[in-house]
């Protein structure tokens, strides 16, 4: 059997919303074991690109392959864990416990008509341990703080033991200490289990520490490649694609310099 270690392969993706172009000729390949950070200013098309990879949006042009096959025939959704940018936008009164929410991450893995059993429950608890929320498993999801909810959604993405994690600013609202432990967990998942990661973030300091690959997006890809090459880019080049001046060394986040 022909084996491929390509997990995501995007070729010439262009996407228009009505008539405005959100993505223009984006090509990108994520292989097994790679940790990609996707960075870019607001409105640069990061979330749009992730939605296209996840099959939530159909691109106007271009082809997508997942795990070596075309996206249209892809049916192994349990291999992808996803945390969306606004995953905690549900109704706060929604009656569901933390455990019920995390278990729902096993929906694809179980398959149609099957019901969750004790084993699934244990897997959900294990996933909650990773994000240190296991002791809150029976609480109503709406009673948690925003950051705690976000950790629950991360557990939901991890529970099916995916081969690929796609995360859209997963650490928004999480406090500094937990952000650090979350990223070191990601890095561990990546290094020890070879899980591929595609992470959208504005926390550039993380990028420089953990990601193996970096893609800079602003409608089109302005740079993609390994970490070392990214480091070589000059501030002027970075600023060029970001759209406003950026100073690299002294800043934690890519904020415009006034």
């Amino acid at each position: 059997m022909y084996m491929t270690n390509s997990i995501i392969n995007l070729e010439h993706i262009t996407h228009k919303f009505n008539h405005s172009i959100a993505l223009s000729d984006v090509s990108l390949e994520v292989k097994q074991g790679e940790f990609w950070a996707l960075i870019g200013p607001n409105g640069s098309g990061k979330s749009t690109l992730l939605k296209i990879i996840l099959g939530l949006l159909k691109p106007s042009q271009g082809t997508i392959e997942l795990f070596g096959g075309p996206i249209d025939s892809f049916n192994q959704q349990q291999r992808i864990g996803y945390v969306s940018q606004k995953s905690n936008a549900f109704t706060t009164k929604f009656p569901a416990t933390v455990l019920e929410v995390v278990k729902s991450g096993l929906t694809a893995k179980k398959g149609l008509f099957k019901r969750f059993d004790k084993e699934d429950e244990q897997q959900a608890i294990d996933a909650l341990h990773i994000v240190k929320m296991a002791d809150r498993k029976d609480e109503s999801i709406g009673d948690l703080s925003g950051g705690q909810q976000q950790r629950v959604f991360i557990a939901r993405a991890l529970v099916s033991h995916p081969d690929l994690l796609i995360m859209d600013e997963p650490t928004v609202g999480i406090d500094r200490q937990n952000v650090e432990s979350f990223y070191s967990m990601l890095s561990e998942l990546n290094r020890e289990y070879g899980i591929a990661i595609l992470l959208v973030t504005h926390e550039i300091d993380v990028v420089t520490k953990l990601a193996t690959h970096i893609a800079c997006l602003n409608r089109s890809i302005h740079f993609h490649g390994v970490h070392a090459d990214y480091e070589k880019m000059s501030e002027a080049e970075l600023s060029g694609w970001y759209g406003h001046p950026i100073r690299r060394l002294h800043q934690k986040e890519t904020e415009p310099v006034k």
Partner: protein
Amino acid sequence: MIEAIFTYEFLQNAILSGLIIGLIAPMLGLFIVVRRMSMISDALSHVALAGIAGSLYLSQQVLFFAALNPVYLGMGAAVVGSLLIERLRRVYKSFEELAIPIILSAGIGFGAIFISLAKGFGTDLVGYLFGSVSAVSRQDLYIVMLIAVMVIAFIYFLYKELFSLAFDPEYARVSGINERVIQAAFMIITALVIGASMRIVGILLVSSLMTLPVAAAIQVAKSYKGALVYSILFGEIAVVIGLISAYYLDIAPGGTIVVTSVFILLLVLFWKKVRS
């Protein structure tokens, strides 16, 4: 009343149908309420009204319809209405909720035409509007039982998919859940439950039995399973109290059942307030 239950078949039919409806209406209602679709059951029940009125009118005109249980046409109309709502929701993508008043008005419109054409139906129609203790036939009961089996199987086997779609539709789609198919099936099931419930609670009050017990349940439940159990519990209490008082006071059970549900909701809200 106990004695009467053993004596009169109509009472057995009413009590049994009532208990089954008290189970399935709030059970399905939970999935409807958390998806903010409560108005849909209202729209569908008015479409059922058009079907019922049409059937009653035709029964005056055509021999075949005189022998046909109007529930069938009512239910059929609700199923067609449910599919039309789905269709319209896709047409008006950014004004999804517009589908509901469109279908609701169409239902009332056709209903009004048939009722006028027939020059009124008297007690028959009142029974369908507000429910009836005495009008439930054995055949009605069998229809209710059949639909209950379908609803319970639907929720049992698709529980995790339905939960996912309710809690986070985007995530559900990423999980590979076929939203369109499940949603269409869900709408048809809803139409069937409305058809099943209208004999007892009446067309105008069906949606209340699907939403009021749930509204009380989500005040007290922490989990989704818990909300399901409380919804059914409150639904059954309302049906039992409602049916008994309707029988003794000789009034339409739809009224007593729904008013009991309102009291349960108020009690729950009051209890919550006191406790906090």
